[in-house]
């Protein structure tokens, strides 16, 4: 009789312990964790508020004209963001144009072709490229990549493609092209890592079906690529987000001149470089405020770009996972 009562008592305490509200310790712990999690949301909100507040003088003064203004002359009080926006977008697009084919190649090789004992160590080596600090890429860019481009690559490009407006002008080794190439090396491990995950999430049945129909290896890979297309798009956009906000390496090789020139040999300037170079030297509230507004623009753009990328990558892993189960 007493044994049965004991059992009942233990069951009910066990049940109460399971329910989150039944235990004071649980309530405290859960609310503490929730507080810290909400702190993350708070940090993002605080970032927007702090940046917007400090950018307000510039926003009031220039309005939307700030985005279209072509002149950046702090001494005369002229602040236009267009040269920085152009430099940021152009260098990032050059980076993507170079790194996307490479990243796809690397991901395809590691997922579809290399045997396990090759894919693991080689995959790690490619990931190590992402571990190299930005300032180290910059140092290498100044003293190794820029002289190499000046001596061999840029004269060749000028010779072959000099009739277009894109490969003209003084060859210095530093400029938009160099910035784009450094960025390409930096985002390749990031894009290829995400594409690897996406390709690995495509169910094996897709490959087997393609091969069973007589497809060659490459034709089979194309099926896999089509299956993972949204995820690959997400990976590319993720790389774009990274390239847009990259600071040190670009600052050290892009030449830092706020001009819009079609030639990739000419010096350019990105939003992040402008902040890095001029923030501590900015004299006057309006100058500082204009730089903070540049930061706000960069924050909003990368936030949106990253958000889109995450949604794309999540969807594809979920979607192909579902297809796999259905098959």
């Amino acid at each position, binding site marked *: 009789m007493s044994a049965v009562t004991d059992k009942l008592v*233990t069951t009910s305490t*066990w049940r109460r*312990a399971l329910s*989150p509200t039944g*235990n004071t*310790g*649980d309530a*405290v712990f*859960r609310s*503490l*964790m*929730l507080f*810290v*999690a*909400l702190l*993350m949301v708070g940090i*993002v909100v*605080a*970032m927007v508020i*702090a*940046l917007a507040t400090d950018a307000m003088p510039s926003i009031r003064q220039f309005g939307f004209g700030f985005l279209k203004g072509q002149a950046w002359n702090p001494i005369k009080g002229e602040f236009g963001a267009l040269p920085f926006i152009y430099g940021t977008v152009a260098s990032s697009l050059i980076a993507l144009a170079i790194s996307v084919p*490479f990243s*796809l190649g*690397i991901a*395809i*090789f590691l997922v*579809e*072709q290399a045997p396990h004992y090759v894919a693991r160590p080689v995959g790690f*080596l*490619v990931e*190590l*490229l992402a*571990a*190299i*600090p930005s*300032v*180290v*890429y*910059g*140092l290498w860019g100044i003293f*190794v990549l820029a002289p190499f481009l000046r001596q061999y690559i840029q004269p060749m490009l000028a010779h072959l493609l000099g009739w277009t407006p894109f490969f003209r002008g003084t060859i210095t080794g530093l400029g938009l092209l160099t910035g784009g190439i450094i960025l390409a090396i930096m985002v390749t*491990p990031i894009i*290829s890592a995400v594409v690897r995950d996406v390709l690995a999430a495509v169910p094996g049945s897709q490959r087997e079906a393609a091969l069973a129909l007589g497809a*060659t*290896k*490459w034709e089979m890979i194309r099926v896999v690529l089509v299956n993972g297309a949204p995820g690959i798009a997400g990976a590319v956009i993720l790389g774009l987000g990274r390239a847009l*906000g990259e600071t*040190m390496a670009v600052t*050290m090789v892009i030449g830092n001149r706020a001009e819009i020139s079609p030639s990739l040999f000419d010096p350019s300037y990105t939003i992040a470089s402008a*902040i*890095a170079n001029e*923030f501590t030297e900015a004299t006057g509230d309006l100058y500082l405020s204009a730089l903070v507004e540049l*930061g706000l623009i*960069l*924050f909003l753009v*990368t*936030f949106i*770009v*990253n958000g889109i990328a*995450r949604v794309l990558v999540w969807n594809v892993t979920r979607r192909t996972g579902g297809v796999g189960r259905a098959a």
Partner: protein
Amino acid sequence: MAASFTNVDRIRRANSAFITTLTALCTLMAVGALVIIIGHIAWQGIGSLNWQFLIDRPRPVGEGGGIGNAIVGSLVLLLISSVFGLPLGICVGIYLSEIGRGRLGGAVRFIVDTLTGIPSIVTGVFVYAIIVVPTKHFSALAGGVALALIMIPIVARTTEEMLKLVPHSLREGALALGAPQWRVILGVVVPAAAPGIATGAMLAIARVSGETAPLLFTAFGSRFFPESLNQPIASLTVQIYNYAISPFDEWHAQAWAATLVLMTLVLGINIIVRFLTRKRF
């Protein structure tokens, strides 16, 4: 007819072989880039590296000098950022894995993910606005907080992934023994995932030890050994940057040597972590 089929077939096979070779080539070039960069750093850096260089502080051009204060400064900054960043990051990870289910959990995960992508220079501007402006001076504390903000989302996501690897039977077993959820999480789940969480923390430390942009106008830099957390402080990365863009060959050589020290730290952590996790998974 039959002949044209085999022809098409041959082209398809040749095409396939060509492209698969091309992908191997892409991979080879990426690994080649890594080898070239690291090799060049080792070759350039080893020349200026000696004991005096590691313990001395910077001197004017022509008088030698070293990076001792920058090494100490970087370690202080890493310590400050770890004190703030690791506990907060681990708590967010616990929330995401164990508590935050449903819509709010998803929203927090999304915010944490996008926080990872915020350019570090913007984090620097933010910390400048909330710490440097009110206290009216650059400080080690501001630099550490900026690095912590970069650390938190990285630690949070790795902690979450590690906690999710802990089998459910462990949680159920502990709950069945009558432990409340907080005891289950802190006493069973987190210790089971501790090695994984620790490696995630090490990777986050490696990542922020290479950051330069957020330190430019928070920690700022200094040519002396640190004395207080309320003063500007030197760091390896900012030192490398300043020397790299200087016009002096001697400082360029010192930048390479400092880079060798930084890369040994960063790549060392990455390789050790890889070695440790290889056995477990």
